[in-house]
């Protein structure tokens, strides 16, 4: 096995996988994408000059890989399905909720569901900042943004999460009450 791959795997694999799973919300797809990350990294590893940290460099590649994947999906979805107003995306997403999330308490599940309401960039910022624990500066390096753009995006994403969690809480609470009345 390639020593570079071995080294990268030991140091970053689970973090990269976690990042991709939360970003694309599908474990199988994340498994596929993390391989694409390695292919891109191994091919350009020699050119990495250490101007950013190895970890931020890897995450920036992972984010690019995910975005490319979204673009490809968007391409054929737009062409074939969107015309017919398929509204099954939400259901599909719930179906694909990882077991690790399903068994968690409701707040965790609400947050996971609410992340879907964020744009890809907002979701990326949230995952990088809170799940991967990168600083604002590191996040800016990964995304190729300014620090102020990271802060603004983070702020907007948190606002969306708050609103959506509230919606979910009310919806589930309402359903609980209705069940009680019916009894």
């Amino acid at each position, binding site marked *: 096995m390639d020593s570079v791959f071995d080294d990268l795997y030991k140091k970053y694999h689970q973090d990269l996988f976690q990042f991709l799973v939360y970003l694309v919300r599908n474990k199988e797809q994340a498994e596929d994408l993390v391989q*694409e990350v390695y292919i891109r990294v191994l091919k350009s590893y*020699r*050119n990495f000059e250490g101007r950013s940290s190895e970890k931020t460099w890897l995450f*920036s590649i992972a984010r690019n890989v995910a975005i490319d994947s979204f673009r490809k999906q968007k391409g054929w979805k737009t062409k074939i399905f969107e015309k017919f107003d398929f509204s099954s995306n939400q259901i599909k997403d719930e179906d694909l909720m990882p077991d690790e999330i399903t068994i968690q308490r409701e707040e965790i599940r609400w*947050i996971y569901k609410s992340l879907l309401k964020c744009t890809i960039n907002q979701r990326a910022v949230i995952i990088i900042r809170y*799940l991967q624990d990168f600083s604002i500066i590191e996040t800016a390096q990964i995304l*190729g943004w300014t620090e102020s753009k990271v802060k603004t995006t983070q702020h907007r994403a948190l606002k969306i999460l708050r609103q959506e969690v509230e919606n979910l809480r009310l919806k589930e609470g309402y359903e609980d009450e209705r069940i009680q009345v019916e009894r």
Partner: protein
Amino acid sequence: MREFKWSDKQVEDILKQMPVIKDYRNPEEIYQSLSTRSKKRKHLTWILPSFASTAVVVIIFILAFNYQNWLHQPIYHSAEQKSLALVKNTPSNLHLVNNETKFDSIKKIVPKNFNRRTVTSLKTAIYKENIKNGNVFTYWIPDIHGQILVPISIIVNNPGNQSPWLNLYNQEMNKLKEAEWGLSDFYPLKATLKYDHQDNSVIVDVPANHKYGQGADSESTFTSVLERNLSSNSNIKKIKLTTNGKPGIMFGNFGLLKELDVKGEQNHSYFLFFPAGKVTPFLVPSNESFNDIKSAFESMRKNRPILGLKASIPHDLIFKFTSIKNKTLFLTVQSSPNLVNNPVNVYTYEAILLTAKEFGLENVKLKNLPFKQLGPFDLTKANEVPVAPNFCNIENQP
């Protein structure tokens, strides 16, 4: 029902408690799937080239009939010269008519993009005798996947070197036909390049909204292109980066960069690169440098599937002995069952010449070959290494 709203802090706290989702595959399994994936991708990528390969076979078949005739023909730079020479050298006009007919039939089969050089010469590079009063410029262009940089060379008329080279270089980059050559649309650069006489450097200025800093691929491609462009065309050792005249360019991963050193690395080996749908390869140098020319040649025997590079030296072409005298590389070739006088071996020979150039050599002499002429190369004498790889004509052709 109890009314409450979460604060940002509460959302942040929950986010930090999100469960870890692990990949339970073992690393060997993942590593194996990387190579499988590369092969799979390669299969898809090579659907078009497989058609192109068929075209190559057809072309070679046609060329074979007329091979002995056109092998020895000189390159004519104008129709007039050609007519004169043909009238002088051929016993009758019938010969001329026959040749013209066959050449036309080749042109009909060969795709338009094949005509990036003289079909009869089969040379892909620029050699001293091609330059005349022109300047040779090399532009490094990313392939369509942004995986490799392909050096493309052009000849620009500049009698008496009247125009400063950087002005011409900037001007000519507008004419590059990347799409036609099967490469990424990368030029003209969204940047201005100016020579700084004070310290023999070049100032590269980008607008504030430049896109070169977005993503690791984009920024490393941009900086590599700048370094290689200046290394190939000048003795500049430093690039100063500015944004709207202010020092530094902000890159996502590199951070704020104010200068780049032009390292001018050498000692690379050359490979064949066929862009999708193209039948003529570009000769592309390796990323890495080699300690000696023998290891460089050895590297050229293996494909590099991830980068889409094909081996340029066949496995069974063995160099029995190598020596260097007065900047001339002598290669004694062990007889090889598949070594024939065909276009593919011309590319091999050019890859050897270009690699020899990387090691500071000026001539290459092949010994013990079963033929004296390889395409346009006279193998009875030492051949000069090219001035620059991958000649492309940027003037509009009919």
